[in-house]
C-alpha cells in the first residue's frame, strides 16, 4: 500500500547547507551526542534513523539551537549553516531559527485558534502584507499539511481541541508557513494515517525543490521513500551516513546492518 510515492533518489545539488564537526552534547553528566560529523546537502531530504533514545532529536535540536532552552544541555563542536558557525557569539538564534524551522516530536499547538497557530510565524516575520495575504499563507500551509479540509470550517476553534494526528499536521503547517530554508522534522508522521503520511511526504518532496529538509523517522520505509541521504545514529554516535540507497542496500557498518534488518533497537 505504500510504495506508490517513491521519489527519485538523485541528489540534485552538491552544495553543503549544514556542516557539523565534532559535535558533542551533554545533558548534565550524560553524554548524549558523541563526536558527530555530518554534511547536509542543500535541496535534499536527509533522514536520521536510529533506535529510540540514540540522540536523533538531540542532534536535530542542535541544528537550530533549540538546545539553548534546556538548562542542563551543553553543546560543543561546530555546526555551520552556509559556512557560518551557528554557535558563533554574533549569531542571533532568532534569525537562525527563522531560517531553520522545526516540527517537534510531541505536537505542541499553541492554546490559540487553528488560524492563529498557523498565522503566528508569518505574523512575527512580517511575511504577509495584509489580511488577505495572511489568509492565503494559512490556507496554503494547511493544505500542504493535508489538514485544510478537516479544519476549514473551524479555523477559529482552539488548536488544542484537535485529534493527535491533526495536531501533528497543524504543527507541520505552522512550521511550513514561515518558509524556512531548512526544515527539521522530528517524526512528523508518527501519528498520521498512511494517506496523510503520503501527503506529508509529498509536501516534503515539494519543499526539497528549494530547501533542505532533515527528517527523523522510525519508519525505514519512510526514510527510503522520502530521503536522498540517510544518517544512522546509535548510542549517540553517527554510525553511518550516505546515500539512502546505499545505506539500505549496502550498509557498511555491522550496526547499521543489524538495525536495518531489525536486530538491534
Amino acid at each position, binding site marked *: 500500500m505504500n510504495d506508490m510515492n517513491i521519489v527519485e533518489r538523485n541528489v540534485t545539488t552538491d552544495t553543503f547547507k549544514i556542516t557539523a564537526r565534532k559535535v558533542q552534547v551533554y545533558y548534565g553528566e550524560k553524554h548524549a551526542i558523541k563526536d558527530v560529523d555530518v554534511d547536509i546537502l542543500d535541496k535534499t531530504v536527509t533522514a536520521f534513523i536510529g533506535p529510540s533514545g540514540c540522540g536523533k532529536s538531540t542532534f536535530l535540536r542542535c541544528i537550530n539551537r533549540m538546545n539553548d532552552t534546556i538548562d542542563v544541555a551543553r553543546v560543543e563542536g561546530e555546526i555551520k549553516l*552556509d559556512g557560518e558557525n*551557528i554557535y558563533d557569539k554574533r549569531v542571533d538564534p532568532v534569525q537562525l531559527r527563522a531560517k531553520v524551522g522545526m516540527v517537534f516530536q510531541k505536537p505542541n499547538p499553541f492554546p490559540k485558534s487553528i488560524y492563529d497557530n498557523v498565522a503566528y510565524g508569518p505574523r512575527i516575520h512580517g511575511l504577509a502584507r495584509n489580511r488577505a495575504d495572511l489568509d492565503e499563507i494559512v490556507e496554503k500551509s494547511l493544505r500542504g499539511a493535508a489538514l485544510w479540509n478537516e479544519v476549514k470550517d473551524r479555523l477559529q476553534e482552539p488548536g488544542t481541541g484537535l485529534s493527535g494526528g491533526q495536531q501533528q499536521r497543524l504543527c507541520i503547517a505552522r512550521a511550513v508557513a514561515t518558509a524556512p530554508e531548512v526544515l527539521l522534522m522530528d517524526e512528523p508522521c508518527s501519528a498520521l494515517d498512511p494517506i496523510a503520511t503520503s*501527503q506529508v511526504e*509529498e509536501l516534503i518532496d515539494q519543499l526539497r525543490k528549494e*530547501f533542505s529538509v532533515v527528517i527523523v523517522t522510525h519508519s525505514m520505509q519512510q526514510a527510503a521513500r522520502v530521503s536522498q541521504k540517510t544518517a544512522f545514529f546509535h548510542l549517540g554516535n553517527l554510525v553511518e551516513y550516505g546515500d539512502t540507497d546505499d545505506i539500505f542496500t549496502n550498509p557498511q557498518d555491522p550496526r547499521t546492518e543489524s538495525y536495518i534488518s531489525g536486530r538491534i533497537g
Partner: protein
Amino acid sequence: MTDVTDTAAFGPGGERHTSGSLLTESARTRKRNAAEKRFKAYGIGAIAIAILSLVFLLTSIIGDGASAFRQTYASIPVTLSADVVDPDGNRDPEEMSGVYSMSYGSLLTDSLRNWIEQEGIQIEGLTDADLSGFFSNEAQASLRNQVLDNPELVGQTVEMTALTSSRVDGMFKGRVSEESASRDAKTSVAQFQLAEAMRENGTLVTRFNSSFITKPDASDNRAEAAGIGVAILGSLYMMLIVLVLALPIGVAASIYLEEFAPKNRFTDIIEVNISNLAAVPSIVFGILGLAAFINFAGLPRSTPIVGGLVLTLMTLPTIIISTRAALKSVPPSIRDAALGVGASRMQTVLHHVLPLAMPGILTGTIIGLAQALGETAPLLLIGMVAFVSTYPGAPPAGFFDPASALPVQVYNWTQRADPAFFERASGAIIVLLVFLLCMNLLAIYLRRKFERRW
C-alpha cells in the same frame, strides 16, 4: 477527507524573509531584537524599581529603628533613705509597699545630686527638674521592687544601674542636640552637659537593649522602657492561628472549586464572591469580627484568638485566589495520566496536582500572611490596640488572654507624643520584617523543592 488534490499546488508560502548571512542582522531582525532588548530592559527596570523601593524603605526603617535596640543606662550609688522608703520605721513590708514608686524618685534625685558633688562635676544652671528628669520612671519602680524584695537594704547605699530618661537617651542617638535641648521643655542644656560629663566619666553607657524585645509596652511617661514582648507574642499567636486555619481551609476550598465543583451558576457565584471578599476593606472584617466573634460567640476582646480568626477570614480570599490560579495552571495531561492508571480524583489532586501547584499556593500563603502580619485596621475594632502590660499565657489558653500585636503596637507608638516612641515604632517594624523574613525563608525552601517545569 484529505487534500490529495491540492498538495501538488503547494509551494513555500509568502516571500522569503531571511537570506544572507547569519552574522549580519537583517533590518527586521534588528528591529525585533531591539524590541527584545527593550522588553528585557523593562523587566530589569521593573525589578530595579521594586528592589530600589524595598531598599529605600528598608534603609529608612532601619535608619530610624536600629537605635531602638540600644539604650542608655547610668549606674550611680543610691542611698535608700529610710525616711522615704519606710516612713514609719517598722520595716514592715506591708507598710513599705504603701509607699508608691513615685516617691522613690526623690531618692534617685538626691543620690544623683550627691554623686555630682562627690565627683566634682560643675554644671551651670542645673535645676532640680533636670535631675529628677534624668532617670526613667522605670528606675523608681525597679528600685521599689528591690527594696520590697530585700527590706534589709533600707538605709543602705547600693550601686544601681538604671535606665535614663528618653531625652537623655536621645542625646546619644542624635535625637536630641544641645540646640534642641535648649528649646525643649522636657530637658535642658544643663542636663545635656551633665549627660556628656557622665558619659566621659564612664557612668553612662549605651548598650544593647534586650528588654526592647522582651518587655511589654510602657506608658507615655517612660518611652525608654517600652518593649514589644507582648506584641511579639500576640502576633506570633495570631499567625499560628491564621496559618493553621487559613492555609488548610483555603487550599481545601480551592481544591473543591477548581477540581470537583460542577461548573454552574452556583459555583460562579462562589467564585465571584471570593474575589469580592478580597476587595472588602479590612476594617469591614473588623466589623464582622466584632459582631460574630465577640458579640455573638462571646469570645473575649483584645485576644489573639479573635484577632487570629478575623485575620484568617481576611487572608482566605488571597490564599484561595492564588491557589486556584496555581491549580488551573497544572496541565490537564497530568490529570489524565493519573486518572488513566486508576487514581481517584482525590488521589490525582493530592498526589500530582497539589504538589505541582505548591509554589503558587506558597506564594499566596506568604502574601496572605504578610498582609495579615502587617494589618492594623480590623484589629482596632476588636480591641487589639489596647495597652496590655501583662504577657499572655502559653497556648492554647494564652490565645484567650489579652495581647497586643506588632503592627498595632507600631500604629500605637506612632501616635504617642514622645519622639522616642517613633524610634521604637521603627524598631518594631524591623522585628516585624524579621518575622516576615523567617516565614519567607521557609517558603523559599519549600518553593524550591516543589518548583519544576514540564
